[in-house]
């Protein structure tokens, strides 16, 4: 096992899947010679050649639409949106076609594509480079929405996404890209799409989160343990659509106190669905209202203010204390 950053782990997943299956091709802006602006596709064009690693012109709709055609043919295209904030230019291709062709053809056609995009804040980037709008895709029937939280699960989930028979939108937390290293096994590793995990066990409080927020939430949990003796259970969703609510509903029944944390804007955000599932699955076990600790309902501010926009351990811990004080 080697210690890898998330960027290296994602690169490993791509290399191994491209080696394993010559139907896997990579396309996007600057993914070839440049190796991707975050270097996730570094070295792929040297190793697999221009015919499998396509440096495309600009045009997100074109990239997604062409990938749909490749997938219809039977290939497994992995296309990159340089930043999630520019995936809206491709949104109609994903909603009008990627999400529908299996259904439209009554199962004859399928679109086994992956749409990768770095998302989220915290890296002092320009406007449009820090948003977290996974809800747009999660609310779209026919798509799957995956958000890894660390190097190892990112690698395993990307492998699963590439092998998945349906279109998978894969948001990579750019704040985690190089934040830390983790042991990532050289040998093949996959994780089932649609299956959350318990990132930390606890009996007093349940915190449901995913993606880049898992780290600050775990930090907050440690602080709560140390300072308040509170044992928070942290659920890492990994996939938000299809959303499997069994694990976090069970945890909620156990703790009776639940908090949802994401950096996406609060209103009509992913947390709302999690709250609703809990109301449907664990209502009578909830001792206090579920709290949402999220980004605010404004455009993500430019980077001088972004640390005040993003949920951080202090904010999460404070919300947890309020929750526990309430009863």
């Amino acid at each position, binding site marked *: 096992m080697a210690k890898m950053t998330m960027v290296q782990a994602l690169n490993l997943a791509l290399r191994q899947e491209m080696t394993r299956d010559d139907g896997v091709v990579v396309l996007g802006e600057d993914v070839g010679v440049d190796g991707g602006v975050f270097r996730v596709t570094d070295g792929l064009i040297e190793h697999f050649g221009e015919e499998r690693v396509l440096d495309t012109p600009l045009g997100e709709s074109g990239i997604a*639409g062409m990938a749909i055609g490749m997938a219809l043919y039977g290939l497994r295209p992995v296309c990159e949106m340089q930043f999630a904030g520019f995936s809206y230019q491709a949104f109609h291709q994903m909603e009008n076609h990627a999400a529908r062709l299996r259904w439209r053809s009554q199962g*004859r056609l399928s679109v086994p594509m992956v749409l990768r995009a770095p998302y989220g804040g915290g890296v002092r980037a320009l406007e449009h480079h820090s948003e977290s709008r996974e809800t747009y895709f999660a609310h779209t029937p026919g798509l799957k929405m995956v958000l890894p939280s660390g190097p190892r699960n990112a690698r395993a989930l990307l492998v699963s996404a590439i092998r998945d028979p349906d279109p998978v939108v894969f948001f990579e937390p750019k704040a985690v890209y190089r934040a830390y290293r983790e042991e990532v096994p050289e040998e093949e590793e996959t994780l089932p799409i649609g299956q959350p995990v318990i990132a930390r066990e606890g009996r007093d409080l349940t915190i449901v989160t995913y993606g880049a927020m898992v780290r600050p939430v775990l930090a907050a949990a440690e602080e709560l343990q140390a300072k308040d003796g509170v044992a928070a259970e942290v659920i890492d969703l990994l996939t938000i659509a299809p959303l*499997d609510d069994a694990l976090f509903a069970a945890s909620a029944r156990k703790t009776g106190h639940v908090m949802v944390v994401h950096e996406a804007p609060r209103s009509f955000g992913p947390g709302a669905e999690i709250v609703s599932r809990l109301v449907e699955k664990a209502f009578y076990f909830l001792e206090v209202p579920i709290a949402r600790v999220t980004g605010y309902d404004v455009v993500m501010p430019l980077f001088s203010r972004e640390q005040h926009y993003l949920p951080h351990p202090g904010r999460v811990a404070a919300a947890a204390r309020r929750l526990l004080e309430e009863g």
Partner: protein
Amino acid sequence: MPRKTLPIEEKLESLAILDAKGNVDKALEPSMPKELLLKLYRYMVLGRCFDERLLALQRQGRIGTFPPISGQEAAHLGAVAALREDDWMVPAFRETAAEIWRGRSLESVILGNNGFNEAASIDPPGPTLPVSVPVGSQMLHAVGLGWAARYRKTDQVALTFFGDGATSEGDFHEAMNLAGVFQAPVIFVCQNNHWAISIPRSRQTRSATIAQKALAYGMPGVQVDGNDVLAVYSAVSEAVARARAGRGPTLVECVTYRMLMHTTADDPRRYRSDDELESWKAKDPIARFEVYLKHKKLLTRKKIEALNQEVLAQIQTAVEQAENQMKTLGNPLDMFAHAYAQMPPHLRVQREELAAEIGRAAKEDGDG
């Protein structure tokens, strides 16, 4: 430089072979087997008659809204006739006769126009995509299919249809640009029927022709008389040969006319004149082809009558079969099928909800 006129390298041509009266330009006349000529004629007649029957069914409330093709038979049949069976066809929604040529049954068309998802799966599968309603969005899929075919070392090509209005969508631009950059084996066939619902071609874009838009992508472009099936067949055959030989994509503009309404929900009298319509009736693609085939002694009045009877009978049978099928199709619970390769837990739950509701309703009907 200093101040010069810039040269244009790409080929930009126009082509017409069979004029409105049925006179053929011998120098350009393609050599096509008798069977192919007659098959084209049959499908053109079928397309026209089927349109008329669908219109009647719609007016009787027996099917829903649909987009008629009358007047455009030569444009899309001439194009698909130039394809090999294993080539890909990526339609918009006004190429019904071409879909039938490629193997779609009349029953499927009727079911589809009546809101039955089953329409997609009653015919043998093949390399033809389902119709695409979002204007301009399908061309990109042809680029991906064509690219993939070449990556897999086959010599398949992908042909995609779209209208004059579709050329104004951003996706047309991205598809043409990608096809040019990657030299994908794609034939872009524009059925310029002069109207995008109520917007005339002249207000759709300022360029004199659609064909010249190819120049923006370093691609050859050709404008053909779209009511001249020989010209469409010839131009598309050349484009197919070029694509198959690895020499890249082509834009083919077929100048034709939408003789009927945009869809049965539309009333063209609100925006276009009878004179315009009349002037195009004189250029009917079927009439001129009939003259040509008579001159070639491939058709006689009798043969034509017989063929018409066969076609009408074929349509009649299809309508009856489709209407019978519809009695048994349409299980509401099937709406949950094919959302994903495997049904996720939350959809199983929702499917149960609907099943229970239907059960209750049935019970109430039983009780009351």
